[in-house]
């Protein structure tokens, strides 16, 4: 069956309700009221509507991780979620992590270890890396965790596995690994 053409489609959706919705998001602590096309992803709401362009659009299909942000304390792909589904949610992006003269330890570690080349995937890598250490601390198991019931150690294998949803086409993986270890050791 072919999808209806756009005019027909507009008529049909109009019968069901509006194609736009209001949503209130808390981004890096600030509340924003937005009126959006229902199709707007959280990623596009951040970048195109709130002009927070630190969060990057890579593949737009959840495969590359460049759009990783934290929502209510959990990392997700901002490209695979609708903004209108986040009424009242607490969104943390790279812009909320640190300032140029007061970097987050993970941002500093990426600088210390030269953990990027072009930098496009870096905001997603950093948001993901911070979440990874938290997930290990709270005993969220991974594919390489040997004992599902014991505390989890911060090993190369654990970090690599947990960071597999963040691709880096420059291949800075070895230095990203070092940067994450540095923050883990600072915390220990």
């Amino acid at each position, binding site marked *: 069956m072919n999808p209806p053409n756009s005019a027909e489609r507009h008529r049909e959706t109009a019968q069901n309700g509006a194609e736009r919705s209001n949503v209130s998001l808390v981004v890096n602590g600030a509340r924003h009221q937005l009126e959006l096309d229902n199709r707007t992803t959280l990623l596009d709401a951040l970048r195109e509507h709130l002009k927070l362009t630190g969060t990057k659009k890579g593949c737009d299909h959840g495969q590359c991780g460049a759009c990783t942000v934290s929502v209510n304390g959990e990392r997700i792909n901002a490209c695979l*979620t609708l903004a209108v589904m986040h009424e009242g949610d607490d969104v943390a992006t790279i812009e909320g992590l640190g300032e140029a003269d007061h970097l987050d330890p993970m941002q500093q570690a990426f600088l210390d270890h030269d953990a990027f080349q072009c930098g496009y995937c870096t905001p997603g890598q950093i948001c993901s890396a911070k979440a990874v250490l938290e997930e290990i601390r709270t005993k969220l198991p*991974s594919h390489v965790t040997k004992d599902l019931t014991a505390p989890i150690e911060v090993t190369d294998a654990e970090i690599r596995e947990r960071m597999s949803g963040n691709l880096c086409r420059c291949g800075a993986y070895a230095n990203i690994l070092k940067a994450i270890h540095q923050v883990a050791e600072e915390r220990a």
Partner: protein
Amino acid sequence: MRAFSYERVSNPAQAAARAAEVPGAKFIAGGTNLLDLMKHEIETPLHLVDVTGTGLNAITETSNGGLRVGALVSNSALAADHRIRRDYAVLSRALVSGASGQLRNKATTGGNLLQRTRCPYFYDTGMPCNKRSPGAGCAALGKGASSRGLGVIGTSEACIATHPSDMAVALRVLDAEVETVTSSGETRRKPLDAFYQLPGDTPEVENTLEAGEMITAVELPAPVEGHHAYFKVRDRASYAFALVSVALIQTPEGKGRVALGGVAPKPWRRDDADAALPQGASAVMSQLLDGARPTQDNAYKLTLAERTLAALLAQE
């Protein structure tokens, strides 16, 4: 992506009623698969019913010693639940072998069961696909097609796609049941195996859900004693779909249960194959893969499945 209208609902019966009532409606929860498909315009809903506010977020103990997992429990939360890690390790292992950390935080238990195949011809809207456009033909069975990732058993002349879920393979070996609510508010329950349908002549029909019917929970029976393992073979070490996966629960006497992922349109398990487990991997697979109809490209999966099980049994 095509335009759609959107509403939030606050309970499962209301969700089911609305989805049945509004033309072209679909449920949305985690959205990680549906939105991907909507961007490709493979899914083109006219209306989305957001079920994330329906309160199905709990894992509770049942009167028969099992667990009831709410449909909205995320894949991460399910894998991390201490009861799942302790008593249903095969499920925890299967969950963490799927997708990425970001996706598992968003993907839900109900949504995982309903995710669509990753057959490249289903995704490529320039190619014929009976699952996407019934009657169009199957590009995967066409001349020169690549079918190395596709199914070897339970498939049909119309479709050789596999079910992509790891979670469902573990649920199959655990004898899980799927609880649903219909548009008239009736609660139903089905074993996972009966919930899924083989493609036959209608590969667009993947399960027994009626219009508006919504998954509310997955129920796990009392824990199955023994060693739980999930072994997934894929093209890279992480974040890829299975070529073959094996879910195994084995008792110290060598008895147990085996289910396969990556080979069929649903998690693949047979009683006679389970019964053959004491005789080893070869005996199991001669039952479990009896009637397989692989293509030239994916016949390796028959050997790979046997070797994967053999490797798991050797680890005991």
